[in-house]
């Protein structure tokens, strides 16, 4: 069976009760993959900044909103929070962004940790921070994530 592919753009999130390979590319952004071990379904967000400051729309561009919305979506699909597991990726210090948003990668990662801790969702694996971008593919039926660190030659 050919599993459907979905490319996740920054500031968006996606979850489904059908099997998907959700893909995204991360720099200082963070993506959290949530997997329901009982229903074998999953979802992922991809946010750029940790906290919504009240300006503009309350969109999933902001970590606090992205985390709440993703968990909400999983629950709407029938998940029970105690069956959810998380994998966290991203939050690198990408050189161009250093001057504008110091430590944004690290702050994004902290947001993920805090939110998951608040909801009692365990982090079972992660690849965060560092200086390189990442590409990830999340298989929502098995919970596996393929992950590749982007080196300078790519």
């Amino acid at each position, binding site marked *: 069976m050919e599993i459907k*592919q979905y*490319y*996740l*753009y920054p500031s*968006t999130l996606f979850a489904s009760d059908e099997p998907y*390979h959700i*893909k995204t590319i991360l720099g200082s952004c963070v993506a959290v993959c949530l997997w329901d071990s009982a229903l074998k379904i999953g979802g992922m967000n991809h946010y750029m900044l940790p906290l919504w400051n009240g300006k503009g*729309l309350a969109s999933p561009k902001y970590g606090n909103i992205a985390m709440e919305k993703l968990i909400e*979506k999983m629950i709407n699909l029938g998940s029970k929070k105690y069956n959810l597991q998380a994998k966290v990726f991203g939050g690198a210090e990408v050189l161009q962004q250093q001057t504008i948003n110091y430590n944004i990668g690290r702050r994004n990662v902290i947001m993920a940790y805090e939110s998951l801790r608040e909801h009692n969702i365990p982090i079972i694996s992660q690849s965060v921070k560092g200086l390189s971008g990442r590409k990830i593919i999340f298989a929502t039926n098995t919970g596996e994530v393929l992950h590749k660190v982007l080196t300078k030659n*790519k």
Partner: protein
Amino acid sequence: MSEINITNEILIEELQKRFSKYQNTLKELKKVNDDLNKVNIKLAESEELKSHFLSNIANEIINPFTAIIGASQMILEAEPKDFEFAQKMAKNIYNEASYLDFQLKNIFAAAEIEAGGISPMYSKMNILETICSVKERYENLAKDKNIKLTIDNKTNKEEYYINGDNEKISLIVSNFLNNAIKFSYENSEIEIKIDNNEKNVCVSVKDTGEGICEEKKKIIFDRFNRIKDNINSIERGSGLGLSISNYYAELLDSEILFESKKNQGSQFILKLNQEIDDIHSLSIDDNQIFFEDMETF
């Protein structure tokens, strides 16, 4: 005697230490309280904005419907000799329905964005045709104020195909144009300009209306914020247009710039990024091409 003295001094020292520790704790507590108060004020402001927005939106929907029902009733009761009058009523229905369509598009867009389900839908589109369609939809509204809409095509092309998201670009330009008409004076002109260089395609909407004062410039992209905002103001609109446009522009890896001077008018520019080596502006096979070098499951 000397022993008692030392004990007293040690006692006093210990008391001073504890006193300063409690003072620090009190200071911290006060700071936390202050922060909490600030958050509470923000929360109250947010709730007020939202309530105001909701009651405002109810009017934005009810008023056009009332006008549409009234006008169609008049057409039903009209006699054949009243054809011209019936046409006028039909024009009212068309205008009110178009306005409603636009408001609902904005409301649903904002809801979708905040729920997180939005993705760019890139396709090959003729930007010139898109702009012309938007302009046509606003001809009637502009005519009501005797405003002239002109398109200035500086691209030297009859058809200009770009890689873009037609629906979102249309909504951004519609919001620009709607605002321009709303804030323009009667008998004025609004110029829509399309320009390009190797990196960008720029679509700008320029009016010679009221303009935006310096202090309001900071909040125009915030949601629910309208320029003349008090409960009694008869200004129409949801206050969502620019915040949605801003989000869409970012989603399309593009930006919105604006210039404005009070009483001299405003110009809003959508700068569409056309540099193809940016990962996110491609949508070939769900960007599979960027994941070919990875193992498979």
